[in-house]
């Protein structure tokens, strides 16, 4: 074990051994969730600030629970109704928060690189909880944890990511993480939603759903991100759902032990039929549980680094 980073900004700069360290620590943390008293004193007296400039329920709550189970004080700071609306810059807000001596700042921002900017300017640890179209590393880590938990290993697996790759920081973080762990990644979706330089990340590209999922050990369905699309990417949601939606009929041609994942929130009836979302193949709720364990691991590792 040798975690030395002050910040967790993305999967792109993590070493394979660091990813394994986080996953192993998260497995140990998961036991705490099964206890009657879900609290350990590890981060007593430490302060975690959730600084969210973009809407989020799952991720923010997950970080909040993770911090609280480790006995840290967790403060939520959301952009709406705050100084950001009054014209304060990101850096000024962060400097003000730093003056209150937090140990870790968890940040989500619509601009790619915002967490990196904070990391360079703050003494405390910074966790990227999603920045623009760039990265969402804790999501990739919880996905890897879920796959390893269900399959027993990562190396040699085939994972297919389906949907809006272009607008997905989850896909980008997962591609980096999975490639490092020896997973073969295929991305599938309409050509308008797959970045043209995609192959440079070491993934296969497919424009036919049936072909892309036939041999997959894991199918990761992405949400259609209406809010990030400025029109013209797909003819209509109904058309997209008919061509790219995962249904039980389409699953029949897949491996019998295939796992269905989704980073949430699910648009039932668009990318996933309700029957698939609730089927025995679906590990969507395991992903949510593992999300807390992964964030506990990340907070533990960062709070102990030199910077904190």
């Amino acid at each position: 074990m040798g975690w030395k980073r002050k910040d967790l900004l993305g999967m792109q700069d993590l070493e394979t051994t660091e990813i394994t360290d986080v996953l192993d620590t998260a497995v140990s943390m998961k036991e705490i969730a099964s206890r009657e008293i879900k609290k350990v004193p590890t981060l007593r007296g430490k302060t975690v600030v959730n600084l969210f400039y973009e809407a989020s329920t799952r991720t923010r709550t997950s970080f909040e629970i993770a911090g609280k189970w480790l006995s840290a004080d967790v403060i939520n700071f959301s952009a709406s109704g705050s100084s950001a609306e009054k014209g304060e810059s990101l850096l000024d807000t962060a400097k003000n928060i730093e003056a209150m001596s937090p140990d870790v700042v968890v940040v989500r921002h619509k601009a790619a690189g915002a967490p990196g900017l904070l990391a360079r300017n703050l003494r405390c640890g910074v966790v990227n909880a999603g920045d623009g179209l760039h990265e969402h590393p804790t999501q990739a880590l919880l996905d890897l944890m879920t796959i390893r938990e269900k399959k027993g290993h990562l190396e040699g697996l085939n994972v297919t990511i389906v949907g809006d790759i272009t607008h997905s920081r989850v896909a980008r973080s997962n591609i980096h993480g999975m490639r490092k762990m020896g997973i073969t990644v295929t991305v599938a979706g309409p050509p308008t939603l797959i970045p043209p330089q995609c192959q440079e990340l070491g993934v296969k590209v497919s424009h036919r759903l049936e072909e892309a999922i036939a041999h997959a050990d894991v199918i990761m369905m992405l949400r259609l991100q209406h809010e990030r699309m400025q029109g013209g990417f797909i003819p209509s949601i109904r058309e997209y759902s008919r061509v790219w939606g995962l249904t039980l009929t389409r699953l029949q041609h897949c491996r019998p032990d295939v796992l269905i994942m989704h980073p949430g929130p699910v648009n039932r009836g668009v990318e996933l039929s309700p029957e698939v979302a609730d089927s025995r193949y679906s590990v969507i709720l395991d992903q949510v549980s593992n999300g807390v364990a992964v964030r506990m691991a990340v907070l533990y590792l960062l709070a102990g680094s030199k910077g904190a």
Partner: protein
Amino acid sequence: MSGTGVSAREKAQVLDETGLDRALTRIAHEIVEQAGGGEDVVLVGIKTRGVTLAERISVKISTIEGTKPSVGALDITLYRDDLRLKAEQPVVRSTEIPFPIKGRTVVLVDDVLFTGRTIRAAMDALMDLGRPRIIRLAVLVDRGHRELPIRPDYIGKNLPTSRRETVAVLLREHDGVDRVVIQED
């Protein structure tokens, strides 16, 4: 506390295989005697070598009493009091205690008792998992230098040491050999 660093120089052997086994047999007998039978007793080893010792003591109790006490494994990393003093965070291992400890007699098992801080952490960890009726402490080696008011109930070997020395407990399952040695850096 069982620093087995290769740089350390071995000064003396304290227990050989027979001596180590005999010490564990005696601890097993004492546990049974004090508990008036082994039925109510569960053993919880502190990772890593404490767990191995707890398993061995449990087997010995089963040959005396006929029933084998449950053995759990406790990782105390999340309860340490020195997290801030270390350069990097220690590895968190899993706690595996798949039985209720509420109302039971829990015997904590560790290889070396030194400052007592590990045991303090272990007791806090146990209390978060339930309310045992009694917690007792069994250690293979008590090397002195306590920093907290903690005293073991079962001791394999009392071993006065200097602070510069380290006590290494080597066990077959981890080190291929059963012996206890004193080392000096």
